[in-house]
C-alpha cells in the first residue's frame, strides 16, 4: 500500500557492494594519500593571472586530490552511487551550502584589498 508512494525500487534491501570494489577503493585512497604527501615536497610553481592575483599550484593540487578522495569515499564507501536521487541531492545541497559559506565570506576578504572605488 504505502510502497506505491516510494520513488525508489526496493527488491529486498540496499544494493550490496562487492568487497573487491571496496578493496580497490581502499588502494586508490592510499595511493592518493601517498601522492599528496609526495607532491607537498615539490614546488609546483604558480600562475600569475593578473598583477596582484597569483594562483599557487600546490594547494590547488592538494585540494584536488582531497576532493577526489572524498568523492571515492562518498560514492562507494557511503553507497551514494547506489542510493536514491534524494541522497545525491542531499549531498549536493550540503556541498553547495558549504561553498556559499566559504566563497561568499572570502568574497569580502579578497576584495578588501581592492580599496575604495
Amino acid at each position, binding site marked *: 500500500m*504505502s510502497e506505491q508512494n*516510494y520513488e525508489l525500487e526496493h527488491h529486498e534491501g540496499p544494493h550490496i557492494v562487492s568487497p573487491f570494489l571496496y578493496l580497490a577503493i581502499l588502494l586508490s585512497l592510499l595511493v592518493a594519500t601517498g601522492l*599528496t*604527501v609526495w607532491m607537498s615536497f615539490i614546488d609546483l610553481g604558480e600562475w600569475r593571472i593578473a598583477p596582484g592575483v597569483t594562483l599557487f599550484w600546490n594547494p590547488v593540487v*592538494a585540494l584536488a586530490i582531497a576532493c577526489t578522495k572524498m568523492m571515492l569515499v562518498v560514492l562507494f564507501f*557511503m553507497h551514494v552511487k547506489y542510493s536514491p536521487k534524494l*541522497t545525491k541531492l542531499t549531498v549536493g545541497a550540503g556541498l553547495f551550502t558549504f561553498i556559499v559559506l566559504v566563497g561568499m565570506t*572570502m568574497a569580502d576578504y579578497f576584495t578588501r584589498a581592492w580599496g575604495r572605488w
Partner: protein
Amino acid sequence: MSDSTAVAHGAAESAHHEHPPYQRHHFETVAQQFDATNFAMWLFLLTEVMFFGGLFTAYLIMRNWYYPAFVEGSHQLNVGWGTANTGVLILSSFTMAMGVWSAEVRRKGLLVLFLCITWILGMAFLGIKSIEYTEKWEKHHVPGIHWSESSFLNPRSDPEVYKEYHDKPLAPDMADKTEMYFFLYFAMTGMHALHMIVGISILTFMIIRAQAGAYTTGHVTYVENFGLYWHFVDIIWIFLFPLLYLISRY
C-alpha cells in the same frame, strides 16, 4: 471516512501482523524505516559539514593572511605521524564498509571482526594524536595555555625541524601569528578527535549488540547509518591532513 478518501484496510491489518520486531509502529514497512533513518543520518551529516565549515572558513582566511606563519607552523607537525594517521583512518573506513557488507550478508562473525578492527584502528588514530599533542605540549606550542614563539623567532633553536626545512626566522609580528595557526590546528583536530571519541563509544556499544546478533537478522539500518557517520569523520580528516600538515614542505 468517506469514499473518496479510501482506507487501507487489508494492507494495514496484514502489515500489523507481519511486521518484524525491529520495525517501529509509525512506519508502514521496513523499507520505509530504512529509507527514513538513512535520510535522517545524511541530514545530520549535513549539519556536521556546516559545523566544520565555520572552522574551515576561519582557517582559509587566516592562512591567506599569515601564510609564512602557517608554513613554519606546519613544519612543526610530523608528516610521518600525519600520514600514518591518514592511512589508519582510510583503513578503518574500509573495515567499516566491510562491516556493513557483513551485516548485509548476515555473517555475524565477520561483522564483529570488522567492527573490532575498526575500533582498534580508531583507537590507534587517537593514540597517535595524543603522541602528537604531547609533543606539542612539550615544545610549548599550545596556544593560550603553554605557548612560546621562540622556535619561530629563531628556528635554529629547534634543530630537528631546522635540519629538514631550514626555515627563515620570522619577523616578530608574523611569529605571533603562528599562535593562530596552532589554535586552528588544535581546534580543528580537537573537534575531529571529539567526533572520533563519540564514534568509538558508539562502536563499543555496537560491537556488543552485534555479538548478540542484533544486526544480522536483516536489520542493517544501525550499522549502515553508523558507517555513514564514520566515513564522514574520515572525510573531515582527508581535508584536515593536507590543509594542516602539507601546507608547504619544500
